[in-house]
């Protein structure tokens, strides 16, 4: 048969083949349009989990960056170009964070990445950012003991959250006996190690400290709450310092409420409970329990009121709450914009060198500054839970507290500093005057 009709040829294609061809064509089209867009926009990577266990916390941060980009574009973008968000979903899967980070930098050619929540996700992307030399803004309070050239830490280091909170309890509530309760992973373990050393340096005896770890998502708190009650009945004022991770908090507070532990008897100060977490519980039995953060939604400053108004308008939800990591992203984003404008380039090397020293207003009325150790200065607030799920600020530090990359309380790190301006080193030992190499 010398000729074959077109129809026959098409029919001889398998269904699968056609599908693959179409998919290929679509991919091709997508990459062409992507390449075209890259010429007149600056790309900003957003690396937050939108599915899986961490979606509960990280989705809001993705929305925050989209909101900030939208606002910036309304002002005309930066360097005469519009900003364009590239959103990927690492799905609460730590190795996937590294893959997605690589994809953002090599394929999408982003100039900066805002992302990560858990420390393990940050540790997983570190090698990628170092190898491909890009910038990560990390917005969550964390355990410290790290200062990397490619990472800017806009959340609180332990000395900007945990230590002031303990000071408050010692001074205002005259607490003598301490329960350090946390979820079993790196942030609570390191923070509790720092706190234990700090408490002992303040003369607290070993038998007055109880340390307790629970698995992720722990939901049966009966035994632990009963233990806390028992520990608190030794005749000394007792408080709980909680590094319990987000999700496990709801059953923990429910159990506290049900077993009748009131804040005026045994106050709980939490480092991972914010407005978002409280949105899932009835807070009336919890009134008076405390949280330490660098930002609260209820703080009344013109900047914060405007931010909340714009945010709720952007999300079209008049009840949408704001929280501390969101503010960290606001500060980090504005610092990055300022640094880019200063060096008139988005080249990561130039921006990294320009960032230390950059100042950006925070939402609570102060001006935060990027320090040479890539941490920022922040105020510390202690808030009491109110009946409506918000916090009432009962105490704040007199000024802004500079973030320590390396804790002064731990033997292994008290001589270390991070200085990417003078020493060009993330873990410089001030005793031996030597740089120990990589910063983590």
């Amino acid at each position: 048969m010398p000729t074959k009709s077109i129809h026959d040829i098409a029919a001889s294609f398998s269904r699968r083949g056609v599908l693959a061809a179409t998919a290929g064509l679509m991919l091709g089209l997508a990459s062409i349009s992507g390449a075209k867009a890259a010429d007149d926009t600056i790309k900003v990577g957003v690396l937050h989990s939108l599915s899986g266990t961490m979606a509960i916390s990280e989705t809001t941060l993705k929305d925050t960056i989209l909101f900030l980009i939208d606002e910036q574009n309304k002002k005309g973008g930066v360097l005469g170009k519009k900003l364009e968000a590239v959103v990927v979903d690492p799905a609460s899967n730590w190795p996937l964070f590294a893959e997605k980070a690589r994809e953002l930098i090599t394929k999408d050619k982003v100039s900066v990445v805002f992302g990560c929540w858990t420390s393990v996700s940050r540790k997983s992307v570190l090698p990628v950012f170092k190898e491909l030399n890009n910038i990560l803004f990390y917005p969550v309070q964390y355990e410290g003991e790290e200062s990397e050239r490619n990472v800017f830490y806009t959340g609180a280091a332990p000395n900007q959250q945990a230590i002031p909170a303990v000071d408050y309890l010692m001074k205002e509530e005259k607490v003598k006996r301490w329960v350090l309760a946390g979820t079993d992973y790196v942030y609570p373990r390191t923070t509790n190690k720092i706190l234990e050393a700090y408490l002992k340096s303040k003369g607290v005896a070993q038998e007055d400290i109880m340390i307790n770890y629970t698995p992720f998502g722990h939901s049966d708190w009966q035994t632990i709450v009963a233990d806390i009650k028992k520990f608190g009945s030794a005749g000394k004022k007792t408080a709980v310092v909680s590094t319990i991770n987000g999700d496990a908090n709801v059953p923990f507070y429910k159990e506290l409420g049900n077993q009748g532990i009131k804040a005026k008897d045994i106050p709980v100060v939490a480092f991972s409970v914010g407005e978002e977490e409280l949105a899932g519980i009835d807070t009336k039995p919890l009134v008076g329990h405390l949280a330490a953060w660098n930002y609260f939604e209820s703080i009344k400053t013109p900047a914060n009121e405007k931010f909340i108004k714009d945010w709720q308008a952007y999300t079209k939800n008049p009840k949408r709450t704001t929280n501390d990591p969101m503010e960290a992203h606001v500060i980090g984003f504005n610092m990055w914009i300022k640094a880019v404008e200063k060096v008139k380039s988005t080249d990561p090397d130039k921006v990294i060198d320009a960032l230390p020293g950059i100042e950006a207003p925070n939402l609570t009325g102060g001006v935060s500054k990027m320090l040479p150790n890539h941490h920022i200065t922040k105020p510390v607030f202690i808030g009491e839970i109110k009946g409506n799920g918000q916090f009432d600020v009962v105490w704040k530090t007199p000024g802004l507290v500079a973030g320590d990359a390396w804790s002064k309380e731990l033997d292994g790190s008290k001589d270390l500093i991070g200085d990417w301006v003078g020493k060009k080193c993330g873990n410089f030992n001030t005793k031996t005057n030597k740089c120990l190499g990589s910063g983590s």
Partner: protein
Amino acid sequence: MLSNLSARLCSFVLSLFLIAFALPAFAGPFEDAVAKFANDDYSDTEEAIGTVASSGNKLAFPIISALQDGRLMADPDSKKVYVTGTDGKSIDAATGEAVASVPDSASAVRLNNRLRRSVDAALGSLTLQSPDLGARLQAAQSVFKSREETALEPVESALAKETNKSVKTALGEARAAILLFKSDATEVQKLEAVATIKARGDQDALALLSDIGTDQPASVTKAAASAIGSIQSSLAVWSTVQNAWYGLSLGSVLLLAAIGLAITFGVMGVINMAHGEMVMIGAYTTFVVQEVIRTRYPALFDYSLLIAVPLAFLVAGAIGMLIERSIIRFLYGRPLETLLATWGLSLVLQQAVRTMFGPTNREVGNPSWMSGAFELGQITITYNRLWILCFTLAVFAILLAMLRYSAIGLEMRAVTQNRRMAASMGIATSRVDALTFGLGSGIAGIAGVALSQIDNVSPNLGQSYIIDSFMVVVFGGVGNLWGTLVGAFTLGIANKFLEPVAGAVLGKIAILVLIILFIQKRPRGLFALKGRAVEA
């Protein structure tokens, strides 16, 4: 000279006038103290509480109790303070006169924990002789906690008049607590106090006795030490009882989560990884029911769970049947494919819920009959755990009765025991399969209603229960509901006795290791099915 004098006279008259005008506003220490509430300063508020409480003014009680409830409004501009009643009417706190409305600039006086304790102490001495029994009991208890020396007289006069036995005991304990710490109390009084507190025998008593300090007479220190010893040993016994109760409670949660799986996996043999998501769907059904009730029929809130139970059963059951008809029936006898398909399905369901309801936790409220706790001896039993235990046992009994006595139960047993013979007897096996799977899913949905009371309602809810559920079913013996019951309670109690010793993390690991060893020894679990049914 003259002008000087007249100027003085003038200023004298003027100041007289001023005093005259100022008098009504600042007539005495009580009014002064009340005005301090408007300063929004914690130390001022604390002073004001003390002065108002000891003033003897009849407004003292309404003011302090309003302060406790956040109904004391202060206007920072005019320094006026108002009490908003529970009925919505307001009075001026300084004069007691009714006011038409509280100005908009006024806000509730803020409290912190230190002030809350002062408020409790103040209310304690104010309500010791309240006509309400509950208020008197609470007052006596807050005096026991605050042990303010100033409360001694009111406590003693209240004790003389008190007729109710339990309030009398509480007042006696409050008096003992004050005397024990009063520096000028006699040794005899103090020894009596130690005995009274020892009789109370709980953790608060222990705290009080451990705190008496060193400046006490030797006999008192000795008596206190022996009292501490005897309280501790009795508390140790109670703590075993407490662990057993916690174990039962944890077991009931495990059982509730696993019953549905005992049917789909245990009876039908389907490895259903989407079981947890059925639990989650039940919890979200509860959320939706409560949302509707909150917006439309707030009076029905206490019944929300009763309404949610059948709805959750229907919703989860219908979704289960849909899954069985559309996916699982093609995969019978292929466990690996079933595992993968249902696991994929669980991800799909999670993400669907996340898209519909958002990734954050949803608030499911506790009805009043499920909040709080009661004391049984020296252990605290929370109502929500107690109800969940009862509910679980009820669900278990109903399910067992249904499988045993109903026609559909008979068909289900017949099909799972010998499918071909059942089919030859005229049973529509595929219909029974769908119904059985629907039943298992529906029961998982009911579990979701109960679990929404103690856990987060988030898309991840199901994931945290799926492993535990499989563990219970495998441990108890596949295909045997009684095995699931015994398995769940054994694991719960073992876990709760290990937890205080090994910690929550190690305890859980130890349980897993024990189960693995047990399964090595008895691969079919606690209660293995015997006979030909096993091979079918």
